[in-house]
């Protein structure tokens, strides 16, 4: 049994089921990110953990105690909201200690706790201001302070960074990560930003359409997405999905495709499974991350399954640290990630090296990964 248990939790509004049996066990100190497009049910799930929405069936337990029907304030949780939800009429200090006051904590204790948190978050000089006088980053800190001061069992974050500008978002991301490492608290964090999910989490639950699509560590999610949704949702630029035909030749399995000018190309799978072999002659979708397609100089030295395909460069997009190059494979636009100094010109024909160890085959019918 985990620290936070979600057992077969569902949520329906009338006849509409917005959340299908969710089963997640979170260990103490874990940083679980719920990620998915809007409407996937991630916020609903978070609200159910918080007690802000009823659980239709199944149960949610914290520290082994079933929380169904328990008032939010009695669950020993804290939550940071997307809009921060700072009380506009109270000072920062009041905002942070309001929860303690409501729980009947004495003033001296409250003040001590406030001092600690303010110091931790470096907002000591803001305590007498009203939220309206704060910048976005400062509000974010206050919102976290309000959660921290309660010393809860579980922290809930509801898209806390989505209202910040890009630079601040990166800074705060780091800060939250540092905080987690320092305090070792259990966190459930909702976001639609897959980078946030990958950078922050110890585990990720990718959600779509009310289902958990995949639950795993960031590496599992990124390297072996369990279906086409996860594959395309996680990672930026997203995974190239190329239609190929499976051809079995003895022990070797090839993916037949075409290059930009229509000439055939064959890619050999690194470690073809038996299941894959059974797709002989069929068309499947081959998922290849952009960084697995490079110029020959950039190819992964450690990989033993580098394949080369000659095709034409269509567009180059230098992005500072990398250069993204667009070409066509199997009639699909394909993005390759090359070094910033790669000497590539649009219209030029050149060999692209593909690291087949990183290629993931999907069944286009079921959209699931072919194990």
């Amino acid at each position, binding site marked *: 049994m985990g620290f936070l248990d979600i057992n077969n939790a569902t949520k329906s*509004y009338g006849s*509409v089921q*917005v959340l299908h049996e969710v089963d997640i066990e979170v260990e103490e100190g874990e940083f679980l990110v719920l990620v998915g497009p*809007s*409407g*996937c*049910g991630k*916020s*609903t799930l978070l609200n159910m953990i918080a*007690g*802000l*929405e*009823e659980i239709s069936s199944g149960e949610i337990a914290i520290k082994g105690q079933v929380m*169904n*029907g*328990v*008032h*939010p304030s*009695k669950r020993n949780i804290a939550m940071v909201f997307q809009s921060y939800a700072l009380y506009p009429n109270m000072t920062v200090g009041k905002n942070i200690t309001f929860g303690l006051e409501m729980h009947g904590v004495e003033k001296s204790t409250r003040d001590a706790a406030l001092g600690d948190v303010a110091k931790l978050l470096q907002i000591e000089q803001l305590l007498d201001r009203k939220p309206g006088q704060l910048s976005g980053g400062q509000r974010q800190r206050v919102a976290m302070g309000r959660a921290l001061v309660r010393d809860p069992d579980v922290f809930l974050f509801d898209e806390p960074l989505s209202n910040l500008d890009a630079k601040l978002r990166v800074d705060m991301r780091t800060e939250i990560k540092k905080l987690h490492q320092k305090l070792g608290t259990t966190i459930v964090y909702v976001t639609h930003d897959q980078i946030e999910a990958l950078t922050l989490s110890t585990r990720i639950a990718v959600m779509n*359409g*009310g289902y958990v699509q995949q639950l795993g560590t960031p590496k599992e999610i990124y390297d072996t997405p369990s279906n086409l949704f996860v594959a395309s949702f996680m990672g930026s630029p997203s995974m190239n999905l190329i239609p190929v035909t499976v051809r079995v030749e003895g022990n070797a399995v090839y993916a037949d495709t075409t290059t930009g000018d229509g000439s055939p190309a064959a890619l050999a799978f690194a470690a073809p499974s038996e299941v894959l072999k059974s797709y002989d002659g069929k068309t499947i979708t081959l998922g290849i991350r952009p960084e697995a397609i490079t110029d020959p100089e950039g190819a992964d030295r450690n990989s033993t399954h580098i394949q080369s395909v000659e095709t034409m460069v269509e567009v180059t997009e230098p992005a500072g640290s990398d250069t993204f190059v667009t070409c066509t494979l199997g009639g699909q636009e394909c993005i390759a990630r090359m070094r910033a100094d790669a000497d590539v010109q649009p219209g030029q024909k050149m060999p692209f090296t593909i690291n087949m160890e990183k290629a993931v085959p999907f069944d286009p019918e079921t959209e699931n990964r072919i194990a």
Partner: protein
Amino acid sequence: MAQSSVETDIHTSVQAPAEPDFKTRLQSWLPKLVLSPTVAMVLLFVYGFILFTIYVSFTDSRILPFVNAQGATSYDLIGLSNYEKLFRLSHWEIAITNLAIFASLYIIICCAIGLMLAIFLDQKIRGEGVLRPIYLYPMALSFIVTGTAWKWFLDPGIGLENTMHIWGWTSFKFDWIKNGDYAIYTLVMAAVWQSSGFVMAMFLAGLRGIDNEILKAAQMDGASNWQLYRRIIIPQLRPAFLSAFVILAHLAIKSYDLVVALTGGGPGRATELPATFMYSYTFTRNQMGIGAASAVIMLMTVAAIIVPYLYAELREKK
């Protein structure tokens, strides 16, 4: 798509968790408990009374409910005959026609003037702080207070016409209030005076709520001021228009003080409105049955206007 809308909709309200511990359960009952006095009052004092009125309209009540010409506390149920009588009365016909004229002019002119003033005031006008309360204050006064002043102003013998004559414009003529064909327009005038400032405030609030960036963008697109208002701004005031319409419509239907103070329904019966009709049949003519019937018709009219609005408004936000 469908799912996303469901999810965001639900976010607009907090659901109380079900079951356990007493305090939590109390908390989940509190909202309903708090609402219940109002609901009870409304059910009794509004809907109960409406049912009562409907019932009275089917009786031959005269001086009091359930007391007919025979006196004591006897009455008979007489079906729809009050309604038949009602629609036989030319008086009622006049009241209904007058209401149609009055309400449509009143609403249109109030909106037009309100919108114009709001747009003008929104041009960084010096002295806006002084002008705004001047436009707004008539709403604060009842016609019991301003009735005499209005009557004077409209009276050709002592009012505007006379003043113009004193000032030397002897051919000036303004005797609408004395003229059966025009008296209804003087009601419109006074009613517009009272409410247009309030409508102005609603439009002004609407204007101030419009995102300035949209306006800037439209100007970049080369829109003239006129186009800017006609194509970009006024369409965005739709909610303000809607609320103005509802408030004005209900004021028009309820207009009573206005008529009593200004014309008393005259000249002749030229300015009789359903509200005055209902009052006079119920209370001064001792024909409470017919009065109740007219009230029911009025309520049905109000419902015909308000219910679609409520439906649209509430469904959108549900």
